[in-house]
């Protein structure tokens, strides 16, 4: 049963449409702002309830505001996602067919890679193998910039990773399409791209970098939570959300 929405909910949803993704801190202040703008009750601890009310109304359209973790800093984010594929959703005009094909090839590269990244060289090479319509080098570079700008990919020194927004929206798709190749985090059980892997060959569990940071924080000697072997990787610091944290 869908719950009643007010203008505060609608304003929140519209902001999610315009931005695609906001971090938890941003969602909290936005929630307060929307309630204040429309003179409605604001309970600071009821953000997820507020979002559930929106989601119950979005459900018939196969849309959802979904929560997920950034693989970079471990912070929580909310993204507005589409959950279905139909003749109509495929009419989306943001990217051409060959551009979408290149995006999928990039995703293939990232999923099968050891560390969850794809180099720009590899992406450019795979642009030569497009079956729809070839992309020139300059067109591919322009497309990659757009994908980063639209928050589907992240780029760092020529290495591309899937953005938090992309992982949140595409997780069910990735799980279905890459059953054999995906890694799952031993701590949070979500899919993992950038992660540490237990070096015990009979174990080999994976843990997100931020999950590593949280799990081993304050432990004297890091040992694998599954096989108890010594955890040989560098333990990252827990990153606290700042009041104005960046994506």
């Amino acid at each position, binding site marked *: 049963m869908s719950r009643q929405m007010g203008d505060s909910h609608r304003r929140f949803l519209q902001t999610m449409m315009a931005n695609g993704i906001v971090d938890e801190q941003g969602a909290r202040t936005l929630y307060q702002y929307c309630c204040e703008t429309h003179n409605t009750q604001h309970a600071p601890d009821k953000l997820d309830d507020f979002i559930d009310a929106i989601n119950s109304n979005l459900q018939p359209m196969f849309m959802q505001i979904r929560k997920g973790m950034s693989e970079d800093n471990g912070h929580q984010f909310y993204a507005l996602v589409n959950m279905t*594929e139909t003749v109509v959703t495929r009419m989306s005009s943001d990217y051409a067919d060959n551009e979408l094909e290149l995006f999928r090839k990039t995703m293939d590269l990232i999923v099968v890679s050891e560390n969850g990244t794809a180099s720009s060289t590899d992406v450019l090479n795979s642009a030569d193998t497009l079956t729809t319509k070839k992309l020139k080098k300059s067109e591919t570079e322009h497309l990659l910039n757009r994908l980063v700008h639209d928050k589907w990919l992240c780029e760092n020194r020529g290495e591309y990773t899937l953005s938090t927004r992309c992982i949140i929206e595409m997780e069910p798709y990735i799980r279905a399409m890459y059953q054999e190749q995906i890694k799952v985090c031993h701590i949070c059980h979500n899919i993992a791209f950038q992660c540490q892997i237990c070096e015990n060959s009979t174990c080999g569990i994976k843990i997100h970098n931020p999950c590593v940071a949280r799990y081993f924080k304050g432990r004297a000697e890091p040992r694998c939570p599954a096989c108890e072997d010594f955890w040989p990787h560098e333990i990252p610091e827990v990153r606290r959300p700042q009041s104005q944290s960046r994506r």
Partner: protein
Amino acid sequence: GKEKASQLFSEGTAFDPTAFAEHLLSFMGLNRLEDGEDEQQNGGAAGGYLPQDAWHRVARRAECCFRSAPAFHYMMGSFHAEPPPPKQKIE
């Protein structure tokens, strides 16, 4: 048409697009150059260069004049999900 034009002329201030453009350049954050070198090239308009975000500034200010609907963008569902790619693991 004609009637409107004559009314515009007879009452109220006339609108001058050149003055408008000048004001807008300032609003956009134009860096006016000391020497008027560029002036001829720009057909009498002031010289100088606009900052990178010049048009963003106008767009941001104009937002309140528009009642535009925000657009919904998504990746999942924009292409046909095909069966999984062939296994690429080297056993």
